[in-house]
Each structure stands twice: as structure tokens, then as C-alpha cells.
């Protein structure tokens, strides 16, 4: 059976059993992945799945379920069990009917036949990335290259009918030169915009440039975040914009609508579908059409991200970002600025430039106090020039303070998605003044 037929069967079965609201999503995925380290392939993977996700409500009682590889009989059993479990729940005062859908969904071009199926030669790309890294000065290279094809169908009791198919290719390269390391990545929904050689070269060049780090002192620095770091910061801002997080008291953006939360030059948008982006789709998990949402416009917080339930609570309409429980961003985009990286470096008297980071953790979600660790190439900047590489830094600051202290945004942006950045983000480089950088007691 086709996935739309499976979704339809689950929808009809649930309605037949008395559900008042049903969102039925069936997803078929095929993914290929090569992991490599020490210039050698370590494992090659293929994962092929079919899954059914069902949300249903009956008498204001709500439940969600997922089922593996459903066939006709299993769908009937699964739906019946879900209804029974739902009937035993307590009604929720937060229950909100699924939206009635009258509009067509935006289409997108996140699909490339060349990335579908299993025939593409990933080994060749891995080899290209490793060679480019080695030529750029690395002596060993690790990474992963993933392609995937996803076909998805949604049907809801609110009349939503949608199908989506997309592909993606993601390469993450980490190059080493002695103890120094550099990171490069390339991600795209199509083969045309995928560049493994550039990602490998970038990683190798950073590794070479960060050999022989010099001492530095902890203190307050102006910080240049290259796109990978910007994307990590921004994905957290995007998640804090979830109305569920706000309503749960877990966001520094709470009570800030129409208030200044950043500088005039900073605008953050979210798109379900955007040209050049990936991972988004034309509808959310409630079947509501996705769209462009301006989260922060010229420094002012304009909206939270909503599903129907949070929208009703906040007295507004859905923004097309459901998650049944927790709304989430699809593709985050920071508007470009006017500077080049070189311009930014020239602006800095005492600063550091960070190429990537990991392990972002918050002390207080309501104040946005957090720290994160630059993990590959990082450089000290003095009097407008890169002075030398540095290691062992920790950015120890807060998101609201950093958003308020952005002094420059680059005109160049790139799409970022990797292990640390789960929300695809079109990120520029940013110059943030007066950031606390700490180091460990040795």
C-alpha cells in the first residue's frame, strides 16, 4: 500500500471508533551513511523504515502513538489500542480541535532524484573530502556523509491532505593536524549545491591554521561567531520561541512580545518552505500550512511559534509550527548584514573568532544563562588582526545579553545542519561585543 493509503486507513479507523480529532502521518525513509576516521571508512549504513504517527482526541482526551511498519491488520489493532488507551485518560482543559484546512500547501524543491535510492556513490565523495583535507594540511580526517530520502503523507480529521517528499545530503568533516583540528560541512537538499571538496578543504585549512596555539587570558572579549556557531546560538533562540516553552515558564523570551530583544540589524525568520533550504515542509503535524514567520524583526520579538493548542491559549492563530505538544522551528534564517568577515575582524580590538562549538548547556532557561565550548579552530584577534590560534575557551554568557550586543552581521550566509545543530539554519557570521570567555583551572 502507498503511504497515503496507510494514513487514510488509520484516519478512517480512528474516526470509526469515535475519535473527534485525528492527525495521521505516515513516513517512509531510506537513509545511507558512511562514517570515516583516520582517513578510512569505519562503517557503512543503510536504514530503511516505514512508520505511522497518529494523534487522536476523543471527549477532550488526547493521545499520540507511533507504530513500526504498519500493515492493514496492524493499523486496525494499533488504532483500536490507541483509542482504548485514550478513553481511559482524563479530559484536558487544554484540548483544542484540530484546525479545518481549506488552503493548498506551498510546494518546495527539496528533492533530487539523484539522492534518492541507494545507487549514489558516497565513497567517491568521502574520498574527495579526505583528499581535500589532507592537501590543505591535515594529517588525519574523520567525518560522516549521509543521504536520505523521505516520503511523507498526512491526513487529518480537519480535512488536511498533504504529501511531501524530500532528499538531503549532509557531510561533516573534522580534520586533524597534530592536536589541532578544523571543521567543515556541506549540506543540501540536492547534489548540485553539495560540495564535499570545499568542506574537506575548509576543515583541513582550519586544522593547519590552528597548529601551535598560544596562551591567552580569560576575560571579556568581542566574539566573532562563524556560521556554525551562529547557527547553534540561533537554533536555541528558535526553540525558546516555542509558545509551549514560553507557556511552561522555560524561555527567556517569555513576556517579551513587541519588546526589544536584540539590535535593529537583527531579524530572525522561520520558514516551513524556503528556496535553498531543506528539512521543511508545506504543512505541520496538525495539517496547518507552514509559512514565513518573522520571530524577531529589527530587534523586536514579534511572535512565538504556535500550534493550535498554544495559539488558543495565547489568543492568536497557529503559525504552522506544530509539534502536537511543542511547536518547533523548521528552517531558521537570519537576515544578512552588510559586513564581510574581514571587515568584522578589522573592527575588533580584543576578541576571539570561533569556527564551531559544542555542548551548549543552560544554567537558567528563563534568563538564558549558558555556556558552550569552542571545539576546533579558534583565534585571538588583536587590533583588527588575527594574532594566533587559541584553545581551551568557553563562552560563558547569556542569550539575551548576546542578542542585545550584536554589533555586526555578515552579508555572507550559509546553511548549517550537523550533529550539534538540529534545526537547519541559514546563518551569517556575527560580531558580538563584550562576551565572557572563561578557561579551566589547570
Amino acid at each position, binding site marked *: 500500500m502507498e503511504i497515503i493509503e496507510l494514513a487514510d486507513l488509520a484516519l478512517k479507523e480512528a474516526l470509526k471508533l469515535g475519535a473527534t480529532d485525528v492527525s495521521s502521518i505516515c513516513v517512509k525513509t531510506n537513509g545511507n551513511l558512511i562514517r570515516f576516521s583516520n582517513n578510512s571508512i569505519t562503517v*557503512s*549504513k543503510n536504514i*530503511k523504515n516505514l512508520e505511522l504517527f497518529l494523534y487522536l482526541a476523543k471527549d477532550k482526551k488526547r*493521545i499520540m502513538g507511533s507504530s513500526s*511498519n504498519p500493515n492493514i491488520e496492524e493499523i486496525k489493532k494499533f488504532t483500536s489500542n490507541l483509542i482504548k488507551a485514550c478513553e481511559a485518560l482524563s479530559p484536558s482543559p487544554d484540548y483544542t480541535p484540530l484546525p479545518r484546512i481549506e488552503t493548498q500547501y506551498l510546494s518546495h524543491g527539496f528533492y533530487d532524484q539523484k539522492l534518492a535510492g541507494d545507487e549514489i556513490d558516497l565513497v567517491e565523495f568521502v574520498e574527495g573530502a579526505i583528499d581535500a583535507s589532507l592537501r590543505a594540511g591535515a594529517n588525519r580526517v574523520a567525518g560522516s556523509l549521509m543521504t536520505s530520502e523521505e516520503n511523507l503523507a498526512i491526513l487529518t480529521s480537519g480535512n488536511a491532505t498533504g504529501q511531501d517528499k524530500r532528499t538531503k545530503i549532509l557531510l561533516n568533516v573534522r580534520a586533524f593536524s597534530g592536536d589541532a583540528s578544523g571543521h567543515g560541512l556541506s549540506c543540501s537538499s540536492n547534489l548540485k549545491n553539495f560540495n564535499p571538496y570545499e568542506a574537506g578543504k575548509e576543515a583541513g585549512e582550519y586544522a593547519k591554521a590552528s597548529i601551535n596555539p598560544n596562551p591567552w587570558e580569560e576575560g571579556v572579549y568581542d566574539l566573532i561567531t562563524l556560521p556554525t556557531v551562529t547557527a547553534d546560538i540561533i537554533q536555541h533562540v528558535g526553540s525558546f520561541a516555542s509558545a509551549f516553552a514560553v507557556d511552561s515558564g*522555560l524561555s527567556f523570551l517569555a513576556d517579551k512580545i513587541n519588546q526589544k530583544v536584540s539590535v535593529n540589524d537583527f531579524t530572525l525568520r522561520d520558514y516551513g518552505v524556503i528556496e535553498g533550504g531543506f528539512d521543511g515542509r508545506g504543512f505541520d503535524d496538525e495539517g496547518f500550512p507552514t509559512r514565513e514567520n518573522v520571530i524577531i524583526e529589527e530587534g523586536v520579538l514579534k511572535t512565538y511559534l504556535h500550534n493550535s493548542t498554544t495559539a488558543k491559549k495565547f489568543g492568536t492563530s497557529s503559525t504552522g509550527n506544530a509539534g502536537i505538544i511543542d511547536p518547533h522551528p523548521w528552517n531558521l534564517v537570519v537576515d544578512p548584514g552588510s559586513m564581510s568577515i574581514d571587515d568584522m575582524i578589522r573592527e575588533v580590538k580584543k576578541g576571539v573568532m570561533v569556527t564551531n562549538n559544542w555542548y551548549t548547556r543552560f544554567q537558567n532557561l528563563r534568563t538564558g544563562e549558558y*555556556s558552550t565550548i569552542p571545539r576546533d579552530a579558534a583565534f585571538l584577534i588583536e587590533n583588527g588582526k588575527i594574532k594566533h590560534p587559541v584553545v581551551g575557551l568557553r563562552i560563558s554568557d547569556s542569550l539575551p545579553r548576546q542578542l542585545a550586543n550584536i554589533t555586526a552581521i555578515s552579508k555572507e550566509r550559509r546553511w548549517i545542519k550537523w550533529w550539534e545543530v538540529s534545526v537547519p539554519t541559514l546563518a551569517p557570521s556575527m560580531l558580538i561585543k563584550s562576551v565572557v570567555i572563561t578557561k*579551566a583551572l589547570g
Partner: protein
Amino acid sequence: MLLSVIDLAQRLGAEYAETRLHRTKQLGCLLRNGVPEPALIGDAYGIGIRVIHSGALAFSATNDLSKENVKNMVEKAVKRARASSPLLRHRVLLSEEKSIKADWKSEEKKSVDNVDFDDLFGLLKDIDNLIKDGKNDVSFPNRLLASSILLEEKIYINSNGTMMKSRVPRVGFSSYITTFYKGKITTITIPSGYSQLGGSGGWEAIERLEIFDYVEKEAENLSLAVKSEQKPPKEIVDVILGPQVSGIIAHESAGHPGEADRILGREAAQAGESYLKPNDLGIKIGSKEAHVSDDPTIPHSNGFYLYDDEGVPARKRKLIDAGIIREFLHNRATAYEFKISSNGSSRATSYDREPIVRMANTFVEPGDYSLDELFEDVKLGVYIKSFMEWNIDDKRLNQRYVGLEAYLIERGEMKGTVKKPVLEITTPRLWSSVDARGKEVEFLGATCGKGDPIQGIPVWTGGPNMRLRAIRLGER
């Protein structure tokens, strides 16, 4: 079906094959300010297949268990392994291990099969009732409580003759709470540090974990902690770390760097490497009081197992013994590289994840001090009982833990609370500063992330109160 997978892989020329039917069933509940969020039922069931062909490793997984599809997945795995050969500079070989036949499970007095949403939501409502009115003039206007059941069932066989069946149920609780006191808003978690109360076993685990007492006591203590405005001392002080903090340190600063796949560079691109090199067994990393172990066999633990996902018997591993790096965590591939037997550290979270080297229950071993004795000769110090923010670099050298519940110690006595003391310290300095450990070990549940695609695996982190000498703390 599983035998036919092995048979086909071998007929296609694989020198090694294994397959795992793996089911993870989940029930999850969220209660927000006393109101239920949609309940969750998850059921993931499928097959994972690993083959080694000409020294190349491949992994295939699917939840389509039709004969034709499974056959196709085996063929694809072998084909992919073969296709790796142009870029295979290092052959994957496995340590020799005894084949086993085993059917094992964790103790389960009240079967999780009989647990329903009434039980899970009922638990959360009872907990919410304990804390909803706040404590000590601190209100808790937002309370997000979560409870879960996770049942793992596996059938595993490999081409070395091992056959194994297992069942491990787990229960878990976690929470996010927003506290409000005189205009100051702080988010906390119970347990602290975004961790969980959890363990393996049936529904009786809820009683064993003493969740109600634990949450009420934590809510009481943390309500006092969030009022604190006292900065930590600027001078060099002694620091006593509570079990929650020593536990996360054991995991991050001793467990992760001791994973042999990191040491060999296999995780370099994402989860990272280690400050330890393959020939670092026997080096000194800490004082004689630094003792860290990992033990999957602890009954009722979150990371409980008796055989790993390569069919190797589990056993306790001493990672740091009196300050000396004593043992790494191994699967069969890393064990081969080190010319030893595997110590059974290979685990996968789901049928569609490859087994990789993982911690189980990593903890600082107990010492022989009471808490009073640890405090006794501290002239000026800070007791960091719990934490929120933490992180560590990918070589596991540079780490930070920021206190949540913390107290000033003066002349051996606990004085008032201290606000957000920051312990930011290198791994050798940390373990070298340990001079005493408490008698009682406490454990918390956690989900540890590693691998690509990422795998969040259930573990325990644990430890006793642990004293560090001569530390300079930072502040937030």
C-alpha cells in the same frame, strides 16, 4: 529468520555477521501545572544486521520484516561493505570471545505490561500535589513533570554461535520547575542537571526510587538555594561535591575518555576523541583517592545488562583505580586492536542503531568518610550539592559544573547558601585534587548521547560526596 540472515551473509562472503531483533516500547506522560498533555505510546520494532566483509563493516536496519526485504537488507549490507574497500585503510577485526546461549532479564516484580496511563499520570499528580503550593515562600508557578516506561526486548545471534534473548523494562521520572521569589525567576530541574530518577525493573522501581520523598526534599532544598545572593569566595577554597556532581563528573571526565572507540579516533567527527592515548593504561591521572568504575551488572540500575549487544558477558570495569588509568571500555573491535578480550561495553538503543562502545553505570567509588568528617577540617570551602549547567570539551579535559544547591563552609560548618559557584577545571587537576570520599553512593538516571545517527542510551551516573582540596571557584 535470524538464522537465515546469518546464513545468507556468510554465503555472500561475510567473515562475520550478527543480527538483532529489537523492540522498544514506550509509554510517556507529561503533566503541566496539573493538566495532562497528550499521552504517548511508542512501539519501534525491527531488525539490525551487521556484517564484516573483507575487513569492512556495514550495518543495515529496517522495520519491514518481510522475508524479501530482510534478504535485500543483508545483500545491501554485504554490498556496502564491499564498496568501502577503496577507502578501507584499516580492516575491522573482532576479538575472540566465547559463544554463549543466554536468556536474561532484569528483575520485574510488577510487570510493566500491566502499567497504564492511570499509573503514570497518577504518579505525576501525586508529585504535583506535593510541590504545587511552593516551599519556603518560593512559588513554583510552572511545573512540567514527566514519567515513562521503556521496555527493551531483544533477540540476538551472531555467526560465532552466540544466541541471546533479553528483556529490560525501565521506569523514569524527570521534571522542569520554574521558581519565583521576590521577582526573581529561576528554572530548575528535579533531579538537578536535567537528569532523571530512573532504573530498571517493573513498576515496583517507583517505590525503590523513593520518588515522593526525593522530590519533596529537593523542592525544599532548592527553594532555599534559589533565594541565595551570596557569591562564592574568591580565594582558594576546599570544595565538597555532592553525589549528583561527583556522578556527572565520573561520567564525563572518566567514563567518556575511557571509551576505547574514542581513544582510537572512531568518534572523532561528532562525539569526539579522548585525552587518553592507546598506550595510556597505567598512567597517573589523579590522587590515590580517585576511584571510578563502571558496572552494568548493578541490579535495578538504569544501565543494567548482563550481556552486551555483541553477546559478551557484562562485568564491572575499574576505570580509575587509586589515580591510575586502569581499564578502557571495549567492544570486540576495539578489544582486538588492544589485543585483549572485550569487557562487554557494546550497546545499541534501537534496532536501527549500530552497537557502539557505551558506558552503563559510571560512578565514583565510595570512601570511608561521613559527611561530617568530610566537612571537619575544611576552614573555608563550598559544598556544591547539585548543579544545572555543565559541559566538557570533546577530549574530556576542560570541564565546567555550575552549582544549583550550594553552601558556604566555614571552620567545618555549613553556613548559608552560595549562589551559582562555578567549578571549571581540567581533568588531571580535578582528579588530583580529590583527597576524601564519602561512604554512601547515590545514583541518578541520565541519557547519554553518542554515535551517528545519535543514540541516547540509558545510564546511571553516581558517586559519594567527594572532597577536592585547593580549588579556585568562579561565579556566574
